[in-house]
């Protein structure tokens, strides 16, 4: 029988909203020809919780817990992004000690978030053990946070004018112990276990190649953009807090295992960023000054003058931006959040159409973009 006589059909496959690899309630409708994906169409919005509308009905302090729930894996950065925006709007000075604490918790939270990205990416590719190792170490960070502010994910810790609780000596010692435990030994182990594993490389290298210009035009930020070789990090390019005083490198994708901007590069940027974050935490630990940890006046009764502002910080997934309009009352007139995952996920359909992508590759691409659906839908 010749090949021409075999009748083949395309199949519409509904991936999600309940699917283990879509990292939440996210639906992709894919048109497949066998294992090959011809076209994909993303559907979002299953987790919409009206953050922006809720923010219009609550005062500046009450909005903070809502920002936690956008990107629940790195809530500190969301808190911080909101806090810097309001501080700029109201002209509030943040005490020095609070800035150090913010850097410390934000970078630890970045490590926790990247650990989860690493673990779940291994899970997507089919390796289960790295996931549990990642969770074991993430648990240490979450315990530190729990001790610091009483919650493990939705911290509401960084607030306008400072932070909620002071760092105690014990927590500082905890953080130092974690850095010593984690930095060279455990990350090297992860690299040996997963990053440089031959099967893992063959699954991720040359898959989902995202050219730099395309990434920029789609508004991709964070590790996903840096994986394409673009040196763009707000902590260095538009420093906020005390980042201009700290030393760190911005790891970018090098294309060493395949083409520049493939899944492996995006993944590896996160692994390398963890080392940089630990480096930042160590510097903050060394330099943390004594003093107040919040601006007590500004802490609760925030009432900025009428005006508007946009501030952004470098979250674990990209630029977390807050655009706030004030009408002079203690309730924001409008809060618009720029969620990095929302922009990052928009490139998914383009990536699947750029090259021959199989069903397994689609899982790898979604995992390498490291989206949080709570943030996409808000």
């Amino acid at each position: 029988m010749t090949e021409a006589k075999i009748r083949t059909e395309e199949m519409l496959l509904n991936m999600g909203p309940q699917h283990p690899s879509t990292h939440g309630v996210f639906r992709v409708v894919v048109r497949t020809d066998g294992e090959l994906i011809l076209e994909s169409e993303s559907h979002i919005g299953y987790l919409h919780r009206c953050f922006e509308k809720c923010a219009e009905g609550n005062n500046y302090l009450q909005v903070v817990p809502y920002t936690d729930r956008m990107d629940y894996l790195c809530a500190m950065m969301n808190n911080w992004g909101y806090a810097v925006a309001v501080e700029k709007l109201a002209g509030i000075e943040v005490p020095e000690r609070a800035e150090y604490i913010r850097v410390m918790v934000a970078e630890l939270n970045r490590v926790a978030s990247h650990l989860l990205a690493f673990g779940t990416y291994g899970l997507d590719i089919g390796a289960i053990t790295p996931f549990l190792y990642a969770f074991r170490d993430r648990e240490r960070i979450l315990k530190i946070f729990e001790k610091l502010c009483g919650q493990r994910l939705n911290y509401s810790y960084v607030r306008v004018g400072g932070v909620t609780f002071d760092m105690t000596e014990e927590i500082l010692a905890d953080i130092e112990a974690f850095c010593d435990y984690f930095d060279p030994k455990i990350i090297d182990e992860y690299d040996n276990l997963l990053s440089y594993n031959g099967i893992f490389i063959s699954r991720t290298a040359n898959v989902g190649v995202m050219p730099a210009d395309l990434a920029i035009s789609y508004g991709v930020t964070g590790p996903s953009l840096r994986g394409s070789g673009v040196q763009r990090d707000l902590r260095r390019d538009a420093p906020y807090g005390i980042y201009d005083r700290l030393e760190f490198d911005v790891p970018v994708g090098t294309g060493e295992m395949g083409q520049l901007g493939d899944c492996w590069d995006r993944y590896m940027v996160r692994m390398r960023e963890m080392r940089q974050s630990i480096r930042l935490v160590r510097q903050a630990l060394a330099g943390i000054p004594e003093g107040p940890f919040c601006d007590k006046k500004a802490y609760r009764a925030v009432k900025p003058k009428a005006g508007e502002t946009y501030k952004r910080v470098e979250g674990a997934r990209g630029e977390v931006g807050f655009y706030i309009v004030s009408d002079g009352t203690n309730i924001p007139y409008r809060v618009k959040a720029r969620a990095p995952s929302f922009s990052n996920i928009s490139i998914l359909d383009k990536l699947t159409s750029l090259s021959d992508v199989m069903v397994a590759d689609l899982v790898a691409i979604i995992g390498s973009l490291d989206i949080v659906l709570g943030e996409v839908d808000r």
Partner: protein
Amino acid sequence: MNLFAFTTIFAQAGKGLGEFAGDYSSKWDAGTYDGGLVFAGIIKWLVTTWGVPEWVPLSSILNGVLEASVFPEIGALLITIGLVFGFVNIFAIGAVWSERKVSAHMQCRLGPMEVGPHGILQTVADGLKLLAKEDIIPRLADKPLFALAPAIVFAGVLMRFVPLPFGDQLIASDLDLGLFFIAAVGAVEVLGVIMAGWSSNNKWSLFGTIRTATQMVSYEIPIGLAFITVIICSGSFSLMEIVNQQGGSLNASDGYVYGGWIWHWNLFRNPFMLVLSITYFIASLAECKRSPFDLPEAESELVSGFHTEYTGMRFALFFLAEYAAMYLVAAVAVVIFLGGWWSGIYPLDALGLGPEATTLTKTLGLLIKVGVFLSKAFALVFVQMWVRWTLPRIRLDQMMYVCWKVLLPISLVCLIGSCLWELASGGASVFGFGIVVE
């Protein structure tokens, strides 16, 4: 290839059944129990010694039937089936538990700890739960196929246990074409999996099914090549014969095989065998759908692949079949490469063999051989688990690449190399010691 194999197998299976009619008890008494089953002998001995008691109605007729030597063989057959089935179940229960423990200990966890000491009865509890579950058949599923598929998969695995020894003489039926039988019946399992995925009427199951078909049909070839190489070197298809040959020939002149040292194993027969054993192991992982070749089940991609829609006992049968297949490929590897029941230590192997052996040493020797065989197989099963809990899954095209462009050429080179080695060395092993030259 497989169709041809089937016809041969049925002829062979018929012959195997016929062999059951042979008089095993006398062979047991004489200590030359070649190619038979110990249980058959024991049963026959029991029945013919005592017979059916007088008070049983129609005892004289029953005894007449027994004397016609029909019952002992059928009884032995049933008992054999029961033993194999029981072994598969108990192994699966133990293997599921140990897989959970192995994974837990690799992942800094404890694993099941609640049911029984260290959770050893957890699988039993889970099995009971699965038995009690509602048997759901999707409305749009092809019901007969859907219901039949798990049974076919399980039967396909169980059938392959027929020519597989568990120790010296402990074999359901020593088929002359044993290895061929194992390779051929493997195709039945693929059929069952395809039925399961297709009849589920689920797109994800369909993906899993197509993957399974691709994978298992492809990987039969490296496995077949490994078998062929071993068959060429040993000159026999029979698993018993292959193992006996690996027992060495230290004193083969009196007709007994006493066992040999570790270098008599096929693994060290020539350098190609060493490579071939690795290719066989990799291909066998694919054959029993274990990670990194677990594409048919791929939880993160296909949710659960071909058994997505299955619940309750039907799901348990798939599960059971998977673990039975794990043991099976490991046991075959032990038979064809790792010296079967020979421990590789001559004095230990020689225990209970030869004309001077008493019943005590015979029994002791048999137990040791069973223990050695099982521990080798279990060690390989552990390696399978170890691999699963370390490695990521490979993609479909890479799976095909590994099979056709890596394993197949290497296996072919090993096949040719082994043949040349055998011709050149006249059957000498790597270490220069003789294997079996008669």
